[in-house]
Every structure is written in structure tokens, then in C-alpha cells.
């Protein structure tokens, strides 16, 4: 039983200034990998530090395993945290780093060595035990930090952007390793990141944060396919969701759901394998003037605007597989379409999701 729960958690660093964390209500489930995702300054690290006990909440409650921990020191909360910089103790060896939490808990020498050995084995760093942190590579430091966190078998893991100091190639493999590691030890984990790819790939659930507030919590598929507001819609996805204004609503659709009409099923000209399943059902035809194209190898990104008097803010993006061979001249207008089921409707003033509104049929351009 190690569910973290926050109730109305708020942090004001300075009175009169906007809150760094505003009225956050979170509940993590046993053994789950919960990701706090948001741009820098969204309060995700502050929230994590409050759970760790490194920052005092201005108001609200934090419970770990059902116990209110607001007044407990980090030591008493019995959690483990991996810092963005790893925060290894530079004057201690790898072994010294790993056994430090055990020493701090007053665990005897033989027991300490057994556990350190187990943790070092689990992370494949047994050959590094006598080295100092400065003699290690970024990836090795990250493993030592993880070993130091796991060694006392905590009830909760807090990870603060542990992959951001690694280079791109290493990050991908470390991400997978970290994910498998978490599945194996099955410890409830809260993971802070600003990288949506990490969040989507690793998270059981994602809490998307902005300006200190949690905008949406859900599985990766939920937050991506069913964004609660325009912030979540544009923060997740690269390129982000297209948003066009239409009367009182903002209509959103993902670039991958916006494709040439020739792509639609039933057209003889389109090869079978290009007819995606999502193209069934009714669709909204749109005239798309292409201003430029990016070729990214596996996919093509088309930038341009809608030639349609029904919408304001018409800049949109289309994203399709490179296997789609059609050529598009810059400046030319093409017949594109969006399946109706993939249109999302947002309140224009508040940005939150609203009910679907019928679209006026298009006049011919």
C-alpha cells in the first residue's frame, strides 16, 4: 500500500505571486508508473519536491500510504528519489553511494553488502563498485543513482527528469531499460518530464500540467486522443493538433487525420495498403493550400492553410507516411479531408472540451 494522494496541494513561493502549484488533486495507484508532464515552469518538479518533503506546501495535504506526511521530514517518508543531476556523492565510491541510504537507516554491515550486491547486479554495475562518480559516463551515473534508490526497497520512487542529461541515442535505450526495471520491481513511480515521447512511452498514466495546474490525467491514449482542453491538445503530439476557429468553438484535429481525399477508401487510385482503417465513415472535405513540405524520412509534414471561409486561424499541418507517393506543388490547392469522428470541439473562450456542433456545409471556394 503506497498510494500517493494529494488534496488541494498548493505552493506559493512568494505571497502575491502566481502559485507554482495550484490546487492539485492526484491519486496514484499501486505499482503504477505515473508521469507528470508539462513545459518548464509548469510546477511539475515543485509538485514532486513537495511529495519528497524537500518543499513545504503552502496549503493542502499529501498522503503516502494513507498517512498524512505534510509534517514529516524526507527521511521519515521513506521514499527514494533520483535527481535530474543524479546528485551522486562525489567523494564516495559507487559502493559508498549505494550503501549510504542503508547506513542512514542503521542497517548492519553484512545486510548492507548483500543488498548493495543485489542492487548492483540488477542494474549491471557490479564492475564499477570501486570507482568514483567522476570516473563514470552519464549512463553509468544514472544506473548508480537508480541502484542507490532501489537498494532500500522504497515504497515510492520519485524520478525528476532522469534521462535529460543523456545524449539522444543513449536516452532511447535508457528509457526502455528504466521502463523494464520499473515493471520488474513494480514500485509505484512518479516520473517528471517535459518530453512527451518519454511520457507516452513509459507512463501508465500521464498528468499533464501547465501553470501549476493539472489539466488532465489519463492513459497516454486518453490524453492524446481525447485532450481535455486546447493546452493538452497542442502540448502533446509533434506536430501539435490543428486548431481552427469556427464561430463559438475551436475545432481540433490531429495532422495525421488530415490527408488527401485520394487517400480515402473506395477510390480506385489509392493502393490497398494506404487505405487506413480510420478513413471509414463520413468525413469533412477541406481545401488545403500547401505552402511548404518537410520530408522527414519516414513521414512527410505539409504546412499550409485552409481555403475555407467557415474558419478563422486557418494555418494547419498535415502529416502522412512517406509511402504516400503523391507530389504536391508549393502554393497549389488540394482536396483534403478529416474523418468526422476525429474532430474535437473546444470552447473558444475557455479552451475546454464542448459538445460536437454541426458544421455548416462548405461553399465552393
Amino acid at each position, binding site marked *: 500500500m503506497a498510494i500517493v494522494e494529494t488534496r488541494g496541494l498548493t505552493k506559493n513561493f512568494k505571497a502575491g505571486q502566481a502559485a507554482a502549484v495550484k490546487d492539485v488533486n492526484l491519486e496514484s495507484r499501486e505499482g503504477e508508473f505515473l508521469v507528470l508532464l508539462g513545459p518548464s515552469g509548469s510546477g511539475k518538479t515543485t509538485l514532486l519536491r513537495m511529495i*519528497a*518533503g*524537500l518543499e513545504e506546501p503552502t496549503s493542502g495535504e499529501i498522503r503516502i500510504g494513507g498517512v498524512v506526511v505534510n509534517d514529516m*521530514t*524526507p*527521511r521519515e517518508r*521513506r*521514499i*527514494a*528519489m533520483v*535527481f*535530474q*543531476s543524479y*546528485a*551522486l*556523492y*562525489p*567523494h564516495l565510491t559507487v559502493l559508498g553511494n549505494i550503501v*549510504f*541510504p542503508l547506513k*542512514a*537507516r542503521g542497517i548492519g554491515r553484512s545486510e548492507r553488502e548483500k543488498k548493495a550486491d543485489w542492487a548492483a547486479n540488477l542494474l549491471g554495475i557490479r564492475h564499477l563498485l570501486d570507482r568514483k562518480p*567522476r570516473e563514470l559516463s552519464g549512463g553509468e551515473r544514472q544506473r548508480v543513482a537508480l541502484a*542507490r534508490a532501489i537498494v*532500500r526497497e522504497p515504497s515510492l520512487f*520519485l524520478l525528476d527528469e532522469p534521462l535529460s542529461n543523456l545524449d539522444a541515442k543513449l536516452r532511447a535505450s535508457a528509457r526502455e531499460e528504466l521502463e523494464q526495471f520499473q515493471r520488474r520491481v513494480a514500485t509505484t513511480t512518479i516520473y517528471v518530464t517535459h518530453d512527451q515521447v518519454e511520457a507516452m512511452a513509459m507512463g501508465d498514466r500521464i498528468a499533464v500540467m501547465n501553470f501549476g495546474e493539472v489539466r488532465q490525467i489519463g492513459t497516454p491514449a486518453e490524453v492524446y486522443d481525447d485532450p481535455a482542453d486546447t493546452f493538452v491538445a497542442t502540448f502533446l503530439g509533434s506536430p501539435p493538433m490543428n486548431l481552427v476557429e469556427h464561430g463559438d468553438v475551436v475545432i481540433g484535429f490531429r495532422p495525421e487525420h488530415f490527408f488527401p481525399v485520394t487517400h480515402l477508401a473506395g477510390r480506385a487510385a489509392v493502393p490497398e495498403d494506404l487505405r487506413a482503417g480510420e478513413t471509414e465513415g463520413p468525413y469533412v472535405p477541406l481545401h488545403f493550400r500547401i505552402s511548404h513540405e518537410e520530408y522527414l524520412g519516414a513521414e512527410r509534414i505539409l504546412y499550409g492553410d485552409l481555403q475555407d471561409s467557415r474558419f478563422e486561424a486557418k494555418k494547419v499541418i498535415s502529416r502522412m507516411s512517406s509511402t504516400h507517393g503523391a507530389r504536391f506543388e508549393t502554393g497549389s490547392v488540394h482536396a483534403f479531408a478529416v474523418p468526422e469522428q476525429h474532430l474535437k470541439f473546444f470552447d473558444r473562450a475557455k479552451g475546454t472540451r464542448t459538445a460536437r456542433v454541426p458544421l455548416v456545409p462548405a461553399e465552393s471556394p
Partner: protein
Amino acid sequence: MSALGRQRWLGPAMFLPAILYVAALIGVPFALAFLYSVGDVKVASVGYHFVGLENFRSVLQSPAFRTALRNSFVFTVSSQVLVLIGATILALALKDAFRGRGFIRFLILLPWVAPVSIGSIGWKWILDSLYSVINWVLIRFHLANEFSPPMWLGEPKLAMLSVVLVHTWHMLPFATVIILAGWTALPKDIPEAAAVDGAGFFRRLFQIEIPMMRPIMNVAVLFGVIFTFTDMTVVYILTRGGPYDTTQVLPALAFFTGVLGSDLAEGAAISIFVVPLLVVVAWLMLRTAHRAEVT
């Protein structure tokens, strides 16, 4: 002159005053001290005769010298230990922000800013046998006998203690500022990681923060050792080495023998004894500085 030719001369030309300064005010006296220590020079004597190691032999035989040598070490080591402990506690108290911290930092820096001689004269009054405010307070609180209060500068053990404490008072700000600077430069997440790892205040302090501060503390101690081992002001003003040479230190003894006692040669020989120690300290300092650069 061509631009290149000017460049070639400009550097050395700007460097020259510093070299002249060091040569004239440190190099020449240093060479003279060596020369005197193996000669028979007295104040107002004419001529110079080489006498070999005669002066060193006579110095080593004198009980006053041996006491002063021992005292120099006692004085330096004990005041530096106190300075290090005191500066660490002060730095710990001053590193986090609180109201009035700037003012308190300023107050703590004052003993360093004040000239040693003036500070020592102040302490001479505070510790005076008749007018001591400390004794006045102790007597009011019935902690000392009104008719035979402690003679802070007149009893051997108390006199040494007084000299050490006054010097500690003077050196404390310097060490505090160095350690404080080092502490604020420590990455904050490491002590935080230790806190999450379950370390309490003292474990964090002694197993994480102080070990990480070692290079900085070394610098503070090495500077302190140099300033203390070569200092004669505090001893000269407070006790003049007394009572019965029990607080005499090498620099003061050299001054008493060579300048006040007119025996320049023997005074020079005494001060030469300070050199090996300072060479060792200077070497350690350079090594620490080099290490700090490398890591």
C-alpha cells in the same frame, strides 16, 4: 616601433613593477636574513665575518628558543582548530537566508577589517589585570574571587589561552568567509539527495557536506597557518612573550633578539627556522589549488 615590437615589450614592462616590489621588499630582506644568519652582524657593528652555523648552534642551545618553537606550534595548531570549528558553525548559521543576515555578516567580518594591532590593544584592556571587564562580570556573578581574580595575561596557562583566543577572534572572519563561499557553491541537490536517502542533520553534515568542502577548508586552514605562524603582533602587544617566555613565539623572539636585543645575526637565524614550515605549507597550498582546478 612596430606593433609587434611594442607587444613584446609591453608585457614585461607592465610586469616589472611587481617584480621590483617583490625583489626589493621580500627578496632582499630574505637574502639578507640568510647572509646574517651565517655571519656575526650586530646592530651598529661594522664589517662582516662568516661564522658558519655558529648562530644556529647557539640558538638551538637556548631554552628560550626551544620554548618559542614549541609555543609557535601550540599557538598555530590550537588557534587553527578553533578557527576551523568556529568558522564551520558560523558558515552553517549564515548560509541560509534570514532577516538581518547581511548585517550579521558585516559584524562578523569586522575583526578581520580592523588592524591586528588595534584589536589586540582592545583585548589588552579587556584582559587587563586591574580593569578587565571579564573579571568585573565574573565577580558580579560570583564566578571569580573578588580579591584574586584570574590574571588573564599573567599566568602561563591563562596567558597562552588568551593569546590563542585573541588570535582565533582575529582569524575567524577570514575562514568563515572562505567556508561560506564554498558552502554556497555546493550543488544543492546533493544534500537534498542525502536527506531523502534518510540522513539526518549530522550525518549530512559530517558525511556529505564537510567531505565535499574539504578542498575549500584546506585553503582556509593553510592561509590561517601562514598568517598565524608568522604573526607576532598579538603576542607582542598582549604579553611580550611573558610571563617568563611562556607565550613566546618564533617571530616575536626573532624581533626581540635581533632588533630590540641588537643581535641581528641570531635574530636572523631564528627567523630562518620558520622557512621550512612555510615552504611545506606553500607546497600543500599549490597542490590543493591545482587539484581544485583539475577536478
